[in-house]
């Protein structure tokens, strides 16, 4: 009896906890609401199974617990019942899988009007790059990376001259504009993770990974690293700000292109040389 009650308490407690949990997903800020919908659907289907099986167990324990004179039934198998149960399970599983695969298809199919930006992870900070007016990223290489050229830009690639280099941990995105995030890492694995966007993807040195999304509301959101990357993993933070057009343009106009940075550096160097000569 106590055992049946104990399990019933576990069941009721679980359901109540689910309903009244103060912890639930963050308000969404991207187009991936259908991920949330798939989660909800999964909660409903699996929750129903959980409740049904638990109730059945509780009933069995209460009803068939040992008493003097009770004899168990002898029933080795019941193929018909097993086929039924298997079929119903298969239908339930398909009902979760099918929407899941449809959403996944959306997730891996980048719309044509998506604009690109690049996020670069390194232990333990973020930097970003935009392709500039020509819409093309310039070539980068590890060999060219040094304190004067932190992005490793190739000086002679014309595509790179107008690339906007953002050497700080804050990135701005335009609301309602589909974007494709190109993800790179210069050292170990990282993962670009903004909980409100739902989307995430590992950044792998030696290759470029990606995902896409459309920000649907303005605001400031924290970027976390979601792939263990050493002792500073938990402190690898950044910010992504979703702006309306006007604020976005203003932010963008404050950012420098590669060509401008090279020019600045050249002037700075000239001044230094002049000072040194005096």
């Amino acid at each position, binding site marked *: 009896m106590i055992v049946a009650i104990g399990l019933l308490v576990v069941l009721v407690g679980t359901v109540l906890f689910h309903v009244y949990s103060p912890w639930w997903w963050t308000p969404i800020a991207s187009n991936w609401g259908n991920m949330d919908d798939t989660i909800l659907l999964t909660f409903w289907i699996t929750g129903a199974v959980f409740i049904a099986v638990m109730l059945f167990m509780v009933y069995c324990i209460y009803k*068939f617990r040992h008493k003097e004179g009770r004899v*168990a039934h002898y029933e*080795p198998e019941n193929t018909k019942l097993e086929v039924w149960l298997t079929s119903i399970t298969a239908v339930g599983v398909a009902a979760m899988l099918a929407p*899941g695969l449809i959403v996944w298809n959306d997730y891996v199919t980048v719309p044509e009007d998506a604009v690109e930006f690049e996020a670069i992870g390194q232990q333990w900070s973020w930097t970003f790059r935009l392709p500039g007016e020509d819409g093309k990223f310039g070539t980068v290489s590890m060999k060219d990376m040094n304190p004067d050229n932190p992005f490793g830009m190739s000086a002679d690639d014309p595509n790179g001259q107008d690339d906007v280099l953002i050497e700080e941990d804050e990135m701005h995105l335009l609301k309602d504009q589909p974007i494709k995030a190109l993800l790179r890492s210069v050292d170990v694995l990282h993962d670009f993770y903004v909980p409100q966007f739902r989307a*995430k993807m590992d950044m792998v*040195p030696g290759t470029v990974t990606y995902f896409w999304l459309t920000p649907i509301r303005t605001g400031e959101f924290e970027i976390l690293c979601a792939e263990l990357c050493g002792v500073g993993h*938990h402190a690898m933070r950044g910010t992504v700000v979703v702006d309306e057009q006007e604020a976005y343009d203003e932010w963008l106009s404050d950012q420098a292109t590669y060509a401008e940075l090279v020019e600045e550096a050249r002037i700075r160097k000239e001044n230094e040389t002049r000072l040194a000569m005096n």
Partner: protein
Amino acid sequence: MMVDVPVAEVAEVELYHAKSYWTKYVFSQDAKVIAIQYGGTAVAIGLVGLVLSWLMRLQLGFPDTFAFIDATDYYQFITVHGMIMVIYLLTALFLGGFGNYLIPLMVGARDMVFPYLNMVSYWVYLCAVLILVASFFVEGGPTGAGWTLYPPQSITEGTPGSEGGIILMLVSLALFIIGFTMGGLNYVVTVLQARTRGMTLMRLPLTVWGIFVATILALLAFPALFVGCIMMTLDKLLGTSFFMPEMISLGQQLEYDGGSPILFQHLFWFFGHPEVYIVALPAFGIVSDLLAVHARKNIFGYRMMVWAIVIIGALSFVVWAHHMYVSGMHPYFGFFFATTTLIIAVPTALKVYNWVLTLWHGDIHLTQPMLFSLAFLVTFINGGITGLFLGNVTVDVPLSDTMFVVAHFHMVMGIAPLMVVFGAIYHWYPKITGRMLHEGMGKFHFWVTFLGAYTIFLPLHYIGLQGVPRRYFEFGDTAFIPDSVTTLNAFVTVVTLTVGFAQIVFFYNMWRSYKHGKVAGDNPWGATTLEWQTAETPPGHGNFGEELPLVYRWAYDFSVPGAKNDFIPQNMPPGPDTNNH
């Protein structure tokens, strides 16, 4: 010209008999002794893993409180905790411990077929454990790369233990696999070749089926980890670039070029996913037998249960990349692996149905083994269900790398198998020692452990759903993480410590009952399988007396209509007492 070749004949080979204390109890070739050695070592290192979990919970529950835990320590704790629990505790305990004790007894053999190899297997395992422990004492400490050991970070600066610790970890793993292979070949060959007369494959108890298929999985899966370890060791020591791309580590250009970090992930999970079932299948098998014995009813749908084990085992080799949906592998793999992963839910669900249907119209004795079996069902159903979230590629995207994952795998492959371990110990302790465990202490142990463990992991799913990432030393000021998460973490830490310390009662019970427990007799539970039909308890060297038992029936003749008792042992010949029709 004819050569006279002597016929290579030898007299009947006697079972190896130990001649001294050393060969009887230390370098023993008796599977039962080896089982105790494996089990004792696994539990001992498991306790280290338990203490490590307390330390990490202290940090999560009370950040900025314990000066002796910094980020380096924390990452080392989680890494070694995970590695110990999955491999050195659960794998070794189920296969080396229960496998060694139960396979020969349950199939009606005198011992494993290769006793010497079996002995070596244990000693290699012990070396692996000692090397793992040694990594705490080298400069830099053990590796803190996470139990998945993903390169490049596992061998580059900026990760704790990236000098000595990681090398010892890799060597220890390689040794574990070598030791396991020796034991594993033994289990498989013994099941296939040493069954007593009448013990057909379809009369094997499900315990043996679970351990047998799990061992085959392990023999096929561990080599992938083995080569991964060797390749990573070469990358680390000789500067090869199997897994290492061109990279700049903390401002320093490294010499590596052209390797693939994702290749390691494929190798790791090609082992890692079957590993889940290497732990789960023995638990499935054992719990089936516990439920049947203590509900006095045949396991429902035996043949389906066997095929489900085999199908799950086979499918477990084509689902590995569901651990890698957001790893940067080709996104189209997601379609395939989500489909195979959700398909595996069908035979698994069928097993759950058959377990609960075994209770239906049973005569349920709420003994300790039954209680822990019920706890297994609850935690396994719960953890299996959250697997349907993470296996479904789309749902995995927001949830991966969050506390939801941590909660899921602890529930499904931590707590659930552990419930079976406890149930199995309460069930077989009387056979191993000849004494019953104390029931009152057992009840206390059960309720605290089951309710406590469930309380620890249930809420962690929800902070994961909220987005709280795993493997974070501290959360600092993170806008989307409310203070209530810290409060919850403190609560969970308190429960963790409580459940942990409650295990003292369990160990005290084992220690005390060994001398003072109620004398068990040969077959206290009224079980049908052969280990309960031995001439003496605990079973002596050679397991069975003069004659090996002959088997006439399956392992589940409980409450057969018309039979004298509510159980008919497998070696009971047909007769008036067993008249079932």
